[in-house]
């Protein structure tokens, strides 16, 4: 039972996509990203990262504001329309070792096409990022740390039980290799930090029985 529920549940793991954008896209430009990865879990006697796929597009509305949307393609194959729609606003620029800071309000939408059930989870991210390896501090490769916060404001859950937890904190550390037309991103994410991962039908790998680690790869085409 464990392994089967594991498969099913991880397919729509709502907070388990990589960080979409951490710095603004230049005004008038568009980036298209494809991502692969997910939380580490026990499956048939081994630990693997769930191969969840998603695509996202971002548009540089201004030099400091980017609008973006993501589609969870794996979930779509299982009759779930799962989207994340948001905006990224840069607050401060990098000053030597002092990181640039950006924030993202995001709406995470899940629509189960089997019966029309829908959910909306607001998300607020704050990103700290550093460019390195270039002469200026706005290009070159990039390292980032993201605090991603999900909110579930529903009052009840299945079986009319109270939804007792309303805030879910995720922390990500990532690296983006910058090419001329392409970007390549790797990200390690600690999901649902501080939340006990047992009892649970899914065999997660976290820290001292809390949360779950996830690994993600992304490739971005710059236009």
């Amino acid at each position: 039972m464990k392994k089967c529920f594991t498969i099913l549940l991880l397919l729509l793991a709502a907070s388990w996509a990589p960080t979409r954008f951490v710095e603004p896209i230049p005004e008038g430009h568009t980036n298209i990203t494809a991502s692969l990865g997910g939380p580490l879990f026990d499956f048939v006697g081994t630990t693997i990262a769930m191969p969840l796929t998603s695509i996202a597009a971002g548009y540089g509305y201004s030099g400091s504001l980017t609008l973006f949307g993501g589609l969870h393609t794996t979930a779509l194959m299982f009759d779930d329309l799962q989207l994340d729609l948001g905006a990224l606003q840069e607050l401060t620029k990098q000053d030597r070792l002092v990181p640039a800071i950006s924030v993202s309000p995001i709406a995470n939408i899940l629509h189960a096409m089997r019966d029309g059930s829908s959910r909306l989870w607001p998300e607020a991210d704050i990103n700290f990022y550093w460019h390195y390896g270039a002469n200026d501090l706005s290009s070159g490769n990039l390292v980032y740390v993201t605090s991603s916060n999900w909110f579930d404001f529903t009052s009840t859950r299945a079986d009319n039980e109270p939804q007792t937890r309303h805030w879910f904190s995720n922390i990500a550390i990532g690296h983006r290799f910058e090419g001329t037309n392409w970007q390549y991103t790797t990200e390690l994410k600690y999901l649902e930090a501080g939340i006990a991962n047992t009892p649970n039908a899914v065999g997660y790998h976290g820290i001292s029985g809390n949360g779950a680690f996830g690994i993600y790869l992304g490739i971005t085409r710059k236009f």
Partner: protein
Amino acid sequence: MQRTLLFLMLLASSGCFNLDADLLNPGDKITSYYMADYTGAVDFHLDSSYTLPKNFVNVFTLQSQGIGEASPTTIYVAYLGDTTRIGTDSVIVYCHGYDHHMDFYYPRVQLLANVGSKNRYGVMMMDYRSFGLSHGTPTEEGLYADVDATVNWLKSKGLTGDRLILYGMSLGGAPATYLAANPRALPAQKLILESPFASTGSITGDATGLNIPASAVTTLKFDNAQEIKSVMQPFFWTSGLNDSFLNINTNGDVIFQNYQGAYGEAHRIPGADHSTVPQTWGFKNYSDSLLKFITR
């Protein structure tokens, strides 16, 4: 590894998938039933005082046809006990959990057969379709139909509803609760649940913490928390307080709170995990509590 590769291949292809069959597929195939002679891993072993006579262990097949199904499916069942007493004595129908097959659950059923005294109760179990050597594809309706086919066979041997006790362990709690609430071949006299889950929704919610609709992952509609509201028979529930698989607060407790019948008893066992209630509770304590409930 084969399942992993298959799953990755599925992900790489296009189209809409439905993993309901996989949810009910144990993936643990055998070539023969051994019952007492089974040498594979089991949850616990019993000493020789629990041994059943060879002629008390009967494995055979039944035809199971669910509502809306065009043709019957062959399933394997086992009756442990003296078949000549089915017409006069109480019988426990044991609905096993997700993993494995009847051989794996034999010690549990052997324990039930000896509740009260040596070879006291007849116990019948079944491998749901696709489990063990049973044929077919697992479905929610198929699960109910397979248990009902077992009850129907007992009915043909003289069992009446006032002597039928349904026992559901983990996944088996779903057909046991459903058929206690919605009788088919026979109405059950009593219901016993060990380590039950509340609903598919409770499991999805527990897995992520978020209020995710169960319909996002499955068309299965198991809902013991609702079905138990229609169960008026006496009800016995036990779960382990250290259940690492199902949160007792959002599963067993919810079922027990929703029970609206005249008599219910709850046994939360300290230190017991999902599959270790009898052995952690102690075989004698477990058996004595069941006997008291069955004979009350």
